[in-house]
């Protein structure tokens, strides 16, 4: 049962404590751009979760079974980005063909996701943290996506309410979103040190 606890702990830590958006500064561009409405934010979050889980798993496998085994770590960045770009294109084709209704809800975000720092960032963090098991890599990737979805939905909820508030002209748009994000980060800092 130890493995399950360890995985659960890893999942919680990446969603709350090492949240990709709020503590690692990844995925800010879509975070600012797409968090206008909750339904769009949720769609983006789902798309990111799907791609990030796939990408995290694939890159872990390539990293451990090919790159490290044959001493090719120097090509890590090139391999990772090609895998991610390729995976995103494949996912888009696949979803468009077999799940057209799903494509309606989050397909449009898929091309944007290739340059989403969160995906490459998570893959790099997984290799930086020297994650040793495939299962842990899958759990961390999925958790990263869930954390992103959670952060973006919270932000969307706040922004929907902000639209009704009287924001000074120069603060409208990105500035007030950033300040809100900062306060969210402060709130999430309360979770730090939760996991030893």
């Amino acid at each position, binding site marked *: 049962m*130890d493995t399950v606890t*360890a995985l659960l702990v890893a999942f919680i830590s990446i969603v709350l404590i*090492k949240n990709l958006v709020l503590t690692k500064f990844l995925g800010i561009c879509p975070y600012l751009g797409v968090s206008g409405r909750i339904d769009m934010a949720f769609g983006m979050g789902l798309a990111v979760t799907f791609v990030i889980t796939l990408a995290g798993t694939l890159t872990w496998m390539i990293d451990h079974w090919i790159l490290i085994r044959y001493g090719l770590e*120097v*090509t890590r960045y*090139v391999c990772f980005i090609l895998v991610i770009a390729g995976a995103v294109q494949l996912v888009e084709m696949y979803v468009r063909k077999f799940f057209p209704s799903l494509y309606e809800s989050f397909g449009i975000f898929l091309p944007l996701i290739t340059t989403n720092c969160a995906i490459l960032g998570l893959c790099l963090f997984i290799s930086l*943290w020297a994650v040793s098991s495939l299962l842990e890599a899958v759990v961390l990737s999925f958790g990263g996506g869930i954390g992103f979805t959670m952060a973006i939905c919270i932000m969307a909820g706040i922004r929907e309410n902000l639209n009704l508030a009287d924001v000074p002209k120069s603060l409208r748009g990105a500035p007030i979103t950033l300040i809100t994000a900062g306060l969210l980060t402060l709130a999430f800092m309360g979770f*730090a*040190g939760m*996991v*030893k």
Partner: protein
Amino acid sequence: MSKLRHFLEQSWLLIVSAFFFGVLIAIANAAWSPRIERNKVEKLNRLMRGLVAGAADFKPAGELEVKSPKGQKMVSSLYRAVSETNMPVGWVFTCEGSGFQDKIELVVATDKDFRKFAGYAVLSSNETPNFGDKIKQSYFRSQFNGAPVETLELLKTGDDKIIDGKIVAITGATVSSQAVVDIINNAAGQIRNQVQEKGWLRNAR
């Protein structure tokens, strides 16, 4: 055949550039990786020299396996510090564990009988600036110089000038301070047992 032709027609640029870029990366890697290795080794040496006075060389004594309190396996590098006349003057080992934010890696030194700590230095950490980051500062680290190699205890308040097994935490950075104490306790105990088992302590005068 035409499918292959079509494929090649579309992607020849990709294949050729992949080859060309591969060569570029290989050149850069071949040129600079010795230097990168040297940088890593020099950093460790610099920190170790700062911890053990009178040490002229650090002989690698092996990679030991240390278990974290959760049962996770970690690798610690052990070094034997020797003077110019090849007399043992102490032991140095690396250890790691989780801190407030991320992983903390430490380099810890003890005397030659593994009875007292000679101090520690931070290899890498990502703690909160101005708070947890203070684990790098000498006023906290000096509490470990001469402390006995037994289970160290963290206190919130106390006199940090008294050298004993009790360490006073950094104000506002209890978690980071506790992390350092835990990492050192965990690694020192296991490494001392392994060193004793190998009979290396008996030979030390």
